[in-house]
C-alpha cells in the first residue's frame, strides 16, 4: 500500500521534474540525460542503498528518472522545432464585407484666424479588403485664434469669417498599403494606409463683423464640398482599430461684404440676412482637418477563406 502511494507520488512528481530538467537544458544547451544523472546518483548514494529492500526503491527512482529523461529529450526537440519555425503569417485583420462604425474627433489646422473642432462619425462598408464606401457626418465647434483677436488692435481691421456648422459626405476608400511594425521589438502591430475621396454638403454661417445681430444678421450657406484624405489604421483586436488621418475639404463659401449696409427700417431680419447673402463675396475655402477615430467592426469576428 505504502509502496503504491510512494510510486503514485513519484508519478505525480514526474512531469514537474521533467520541466525542471527541461528548463536548464533549454537555457544551457545541456542534454536532458545530463540533467537526469544527478537524480540517479543522488538515489544511489543514499545510505539506505545498502538495505535489503532498497533495490525496489532504487528501481522506482531509476524508472522515474528514465521517464524524465525521455520527456525532457522530447521537450528539447520541441524547443528546437520552435526555433526553426519560419512563419509567413496571414493578414491579421480582414475587413471585406464588414461594416465599420467609427466615431471621430478632428481639428482644423490651416486657418490662422479661426479653428474648428469637429465631432462625428463614419459608417463604412468594405466591399473587399481594399475598397470601401461609406458616409460621414460631423458637427463643428469654432474657436477664434489669438491672431484674429489682435487684427483689430494691431492693424485696425476686422476679418470676415465664416464658421462651419455641420457637414455630411459620401466617402470612397482604397487601401493601397499594408504593413506591420514591431514596438521595441516586442509587439507586432498591423496597420494599413487608406486613401479617401468623397463629396458632400457643408452648412456654414457668417460671423458678422458688426456684432449687432439685429441690424447685421448672419446668413447661412449650403455648399457642395468634395474632399481628399489619407489615413492610417492600426488593428488592436479582431473588431477594434485606431485610426489617424488628414482630410482636405474644398468648397466655395460666401462671406459677408466689408461694406455691408445695416438693416433698413422696412426690412425684416430675415430679409436683411437674405440681402447680405445675395451681395456676399464668394471665395474658395480649404479646410484641412486632422482626425482621430476608433473603429468598431461588425460582425466582430471574421474567418479566413484560405488555408494557413
Amino acid at each position, binding site marked *: 500500500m*505504502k509502496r503504491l502511494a*510512494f510510486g503514485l*507520488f*513519484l508519478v*505525480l*512528481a*514526474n*512531469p*514537474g*521534474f*521533467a*520541466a*525542471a530538467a*527541461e*528548463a536548464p537544458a*533549454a537555457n544551457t544547451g545541456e542534454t536532458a540525460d545530463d540533467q537526469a544523472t544527478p*537524480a540517479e546518483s*543522488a*538515489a544511489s548514494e*543514499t545510505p*539506505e542503498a545498502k*538495505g535489503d*529492500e532498497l533495490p525496489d*526503491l532504487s528501481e522506482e*527512482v531509476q524508472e*522515474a528518472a528514465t521517464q524524465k529523461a525521455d520527456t525532457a529529450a522530447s521537450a528539447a526537440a*520541441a*524547443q528546437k522545432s*520552435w526555433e526553426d519555425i519560419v512563419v509567413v503569417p496571414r493578414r491579421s485583420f480582414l475587413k471585406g464585407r464588414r461594416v465599420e462604425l467609427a466615431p471621430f474627433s478632428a481639428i482644423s*489646422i*490651416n486657418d*490662422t*484666424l479661426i479653428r474648428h473642432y469637429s465631432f462625428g462619425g463614419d459608417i463604412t462598408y468594405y466591399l473587399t479588403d481594399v475598397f470601401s464606401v461609406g458616409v460621414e457626418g460631423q458637427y463643428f465647434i469654432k474657436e477664434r485664434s*489669438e*491672431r484674429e483677436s*489682435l*487684427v483689430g*488692435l*494691431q*492693424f*485696425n*481691421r476686422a*476679418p470676415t469669417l465664416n464658421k462651419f456648422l455641420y457637414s455630411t459626405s459620401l466617402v470612397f476608400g482604397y487601401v*493601397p*498599403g*499594408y*504593413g*506591420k*511594425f*514591431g*514596438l*521595441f*521589438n*516586442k*509587439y*507586432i502591430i498591423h496597420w494599413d*494606409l487608406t486613401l479617401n475621396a468623397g463629396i458632400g454638403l457643408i452648412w456654414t454661417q457668417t460671423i458678422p463683423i458688426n456684432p449687432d445681430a439685429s441690424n447685421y444678421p448672419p446668413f447661412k450657406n449650403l455648399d457642395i464640398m468634395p474632399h481628399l484624405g489619407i489615413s492610417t489604421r492600426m488593428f488592436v483586436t479582431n473588431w477594434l482599430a485606431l485610426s489617424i488621418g488628414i482630410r482636405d475639404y474644398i468648397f466655395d463659401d460666401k462671406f459677408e461684404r*466689408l461694406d455691408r449696409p445695416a438693416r433698413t427700417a422696412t426690412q425684416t431680419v430675415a430679409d436683411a440676412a437674405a440681402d447680405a447673402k445675395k451681395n456676399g463675396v464668394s471665395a474658395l475655402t480649404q479646410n484641412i482637418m486632422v482626425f482621430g477615430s476608433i473603429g468598431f467592426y461588425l460582425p466582430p469576428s471574421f474567418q479566413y477563406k484560405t488555408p494557413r
Partner: protein
Amino acid sequence: MTKKAHTMKRGIALLVGCLVGIPALAQAATERKSPLADAPAIRKRFELRANRLEVGVGLTQTIGQDFYNALLLNLRLGYHITDWIGISASAGLVNVTPNWRSSFNDQLNSNLGAATTAPDAKTPTPANAAAAENRIGMVILPQVDLVPVTGKFSLFSKLFMNYDFYFVAGPALVNLVSKTPSGANLSSECHTDPNFGLMCKAKPYTGLKFGGNVGFGMHAFVNKYFAINLEAHNLIYKNNAAGRDVNGNGNVNSFDLAWTYNWMVGLNAVFFLPAHVKVSH
C-alpha cells in the same frame, strides 16, 4: 521487517519525494510558459540604426505661420547609440523663400491703408506692417531620437521597404529676422516723431531665440544605407510676430511676447554609415 526499518523506509521515501517533487513543482509554472514568451518579436532583424552615423540633406518648411512661411535648406546629422535611441541635430540653415507671405498676410495687405501723414492714423501701410513683422531665418534643433517603432510595409503589394517611426525632443535655437533688421522701412514720420500714431508703434522682434522642440519622424529605407526621412517639429518659443502692441498698453516691449507653437515639416535624403548592417539573433 521491523517497525523501525519500516519507519526508516517511509522517511527515505518522503525525503526522496521531497527532493524530487518540490523543485519539480516550482518549475511547473515554467513548463506552462510558451518557449516564445521571451523571444523577440522579430528574429534576424536588420539593425538599421544601431551604432550608425546618419547624414542627410533636404528641405524643411513652416506650416501655418501668421505672416511669413519659410522654406529652409536643411541638414541632418545624427548618431544612433542603439537601434532605438540616438542623438541628432536638424538644422534649417538658409531660408530660400524670405518673402513667402501667408494667405492671411496677403489678405491683410490688400486691406491695409494707404500712406498717410495724419498723426492719429491707426492703420499701418503695407510697408509699415511688413517692416515690423518677423520671419524664421534659421533653426538649429539638437535633439534626442527615440525609435520605438520599426517595421516594413508593402505598397500595392509590390514595393517593400523597412521603416521606422521616432519621436524627438530637445532645445530649439531659432533665429528670427525681419525684412530690414532695424525696421527701417517704417515711414519716415515714425522716426521723426515717436508719438506719431498707432501705425508707428511697431518694432520687429528679431535675434536668436531659445525654446523647446518636440516632434516625430520616420525613415523609409530604400536599401540598407539610404533612406527617405520625413520629420515634423513643433518649435515652442516666445514671439511677437507682428512686432506690434499685444497687451493694449500702447507700447511694444517684452510684455507683448507670448508662447507660440510653430510647426515645421521636413523631407531629407539621408545616408547611414557604415553601409554594413548588423543582423539580430
